[in-house]
């Protein structure tokens, strides 16, 4: 029950996050033995920058405790959608936590909601959606790439969020979301190249009592077409925004105090703490377009 329910102790089958430092994180499935190339079961050993970790040794450990590696140590952390986003295997571009946070907030999601997502991609957003609508809501997630849909579905099962997430292999631009979901959704989220073609399908699946819509698009041309389609389909409160999160690096600095009338560099110093963003930071992820479909 690793993603869906918070727990204290690591058990076989859990996913854990190995924390070496903030930039060196790995997600590991706790399988004590794995087959080697001769198909014999051998001890599962995970290699890190600071040496090897025997997976078997994790079982029974507490989340949040220190474990030794052959050349150092690391922390084992409870998985969260945010840590998963940082460690997941990329099969597509993914959405990161700042945008994910805004998407969840602006879609008015809470436990019990039904949300429809397409495309599933690497499942980065899906994990956060699942957390928000659980335990009694559902995420219906669609991707037209067969292999991606299948891998994502297996991951959701491995992370024990498959009671909340239903995966579908389907082209939603062409076919919509299917009749089974008509008038069921509280919210629809799109991250695919032609979102405006899906807007009429979104209208069909949103509840009669109304609901929210979001599309994430990297390009402004996509945004324009989507906004037009939303307007034509009766959406209100159409709003486009961009949100970025910047990490501040904190350092203690010391600089000499300049005395303009003295020749030699002064011994006198002043010390301060600086908090600056990295010299280069992501300046664009995608435009988020939100809208409300009022009750009809």
């Amino acid at each position, binding site marked *: 029950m690793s993603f869906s*329910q*918070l727990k*204290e102790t690591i058990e076989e089958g859990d996913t854990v996050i190995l*924390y070496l430092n*903030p930039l060196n994180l790995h997600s590991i499935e706790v399988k004590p033995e794995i087959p080697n190339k001769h198909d014999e079961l051998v001890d599962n050993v995970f290699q890190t920058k600071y040496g090897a970790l025997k997976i078997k040794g994790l079982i029974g450990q*507490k*989340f*949040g*405790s*220190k474990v030794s590696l052959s050349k150092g*140590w690391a922390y*084992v*952390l*409870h998985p*969260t*959608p*945010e840590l998963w986003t940082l460690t997941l295997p990329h099969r597509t571009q993914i959405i990161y*936590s*700042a945008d994910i*946070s*805004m998407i*969840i*907030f*602006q879609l*008015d999601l*809470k*436990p019990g*909601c039904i949300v429809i997502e397409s495309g599933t991609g690497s499942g980065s957003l899906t994990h*956060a959606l699942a*957390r*928000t609508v*659980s*335990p009694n*809501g559902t995420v219906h997630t669609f991707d037209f790439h067969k292999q991606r849909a299948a891998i994502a579905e297996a991951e959701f099962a491995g992370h024990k969020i498959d009671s909340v997430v239903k995966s579908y292999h389907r082209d939603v631009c062409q076919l919509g979301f299917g009749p089974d979901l008509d008038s069921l959704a*509280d919210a629809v989220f799109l991250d695919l190249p032609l979102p405006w073609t899906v807007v009429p399908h979104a209208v069909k699946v949103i509840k009669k*009592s*109304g609901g929210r819509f979001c599309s994430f698009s990297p390009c402004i041309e996509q*945004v*324009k077409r989507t*906004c037009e389609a939303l307007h034509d389909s009766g959406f209100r409160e159409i709003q*486009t*925004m*961009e*949100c*970025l*999160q*910047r*990490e*501040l690096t*904190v350092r*203690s600095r010391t600089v000499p105090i300049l005395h303009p009338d003295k020749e030699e560099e002064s011994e006198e110093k002043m*010390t*301060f*703490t600086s*908090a600056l*963003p990295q010299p280069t930071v992501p300046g664009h992820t995608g*435009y988020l*377009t939100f809208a409300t479909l*009022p*009750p009809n």
Partner: protein
Amino acid sequence: MEPSQDQSTIKLGEYIVLQKGNFMKIHQLSKNSCVMLGRDKIDLTSIIGHKFWTNFKMVHKKGSKREFELIVCDKSESLLNLIDKDVRGTDNRDIWDDGSSQLMSADEIFKLRDRGCSGQDIVGQLLENSKTFHCKTEYSQQKYLKKKEKKYFEYVVVLRPNIRVIAQILFSKDPQKVLNLRSDTLSQIVTAVNLQPTGKYLLYENGCQGLVTAVVLNHLGGNGRLIHLYPNLHYQKHAVLAMNFQQKDLDSFISVRLSSFLKKMFPDSSCKVSGPSVGNCKLIACENSNDPQLESSGGLSSSEVINGGNTHECCERDEDISPRRGCLNTDDTEVSTEEIDPAHEPPTRQFIETSQSSQEQKLEDSALISDGCKRKSSTDDNDAPSKKSKWELEVDKAVDILSTVKADGLIIICKEYPIHLINRLIKLVAFSRNMVVYSMYQEPIVKLFCELKLRKDVIGVKLTESFLRNYQVLPDRTHPEINMSSSGGFLLTATVVSPEDCPS
């Protein structure tokens, strides 16, 4: 979600959001409720029982100029259909604004209004008397009409409050009163603390009108637990009230005074929490020399030069700028203070009870006093009275809950410098769970960052700020909006871990 209760209808006693053009206002709907929108007084009696999102038209009440009632109308007619498709200019070369392009005087316009002319008619007249309107390009005709629409628009839509709309209204009304907590930062708090609906969270909130409390309750949906700690006298709950929570949502909610909670939770420590006598400043002064953790972190101060000792002042000054006010305290704010008719108050919402009319929210734990039993002064806490009052039971419950299993996350949003509070509460957080601290200022949170970096029981200490930019999206005129919010505050996040070394 199959709401057992009908959530689509406008009901007496509930909070609603009134939207007129771009303007939004939170209001509690009472019997004979009236609301001021700008200079207009609007009678809301007629909206009860209608569906949310219904369009209402403002019509003059007989014999009064600035009083309106609302009648249902099909669809808000837009002024934009007044655009002159036939006569229009291609550019502005012939438009010369000498201040005389409008032939009607302001006085004449007001008279029209006071005579009860509809906005549509007024703008029609304005156009007729404009020398330049027809020379304007279609775009500037549109722009002109949009501007007039804002001024003369007389349609109102009633929305059901939700956390998104409430956060937006409170922030745009006066960011200072929600500690500059912008919606993007607010949304990041929820994800950063890994808010699982079934989890158990510890929150200290002071200074943003209950916004974070409302967000957490919203995301728990009645499943997990929120242990909400509030400073001595104040429990700001405007946002919580505005959410119209059902009893089910509130079942998750335990709200206790910080000092009572700490005293019970850590009985053997000599924690002093500043009382009302300290005046305005609510800085929490925990002095505890028995506590090794406090000592170690208290003594280390690589960044002392930055802020050493100034936090106190900072706090006080802040108080002066934006005087603490109860959430229901309104003169010009967006909150209605009308008393609820007790007969219509949902019986379930026990914690709203007392304070509806108390303008000065000298909250006597109003949340917890429902049976008229007055809270004793907190110094009697340990006297083990034979019959415990409700607030004591709440404290017991909070302490019980955290004594068996620790919290799944800690959120601190306040005006104060919270290091001592963090040193306390961190011990109540389970390993591998996150803490999030919000500050509207960079300097104190940088100092906090430095202090936390020295602790052995937190890792991944991270400081972030966020950037939010809105766009105008229109055919051939798409660009970022001219004004943007310059700061949405700062977030510090970290993960609590076991301070013990690994077993060899």
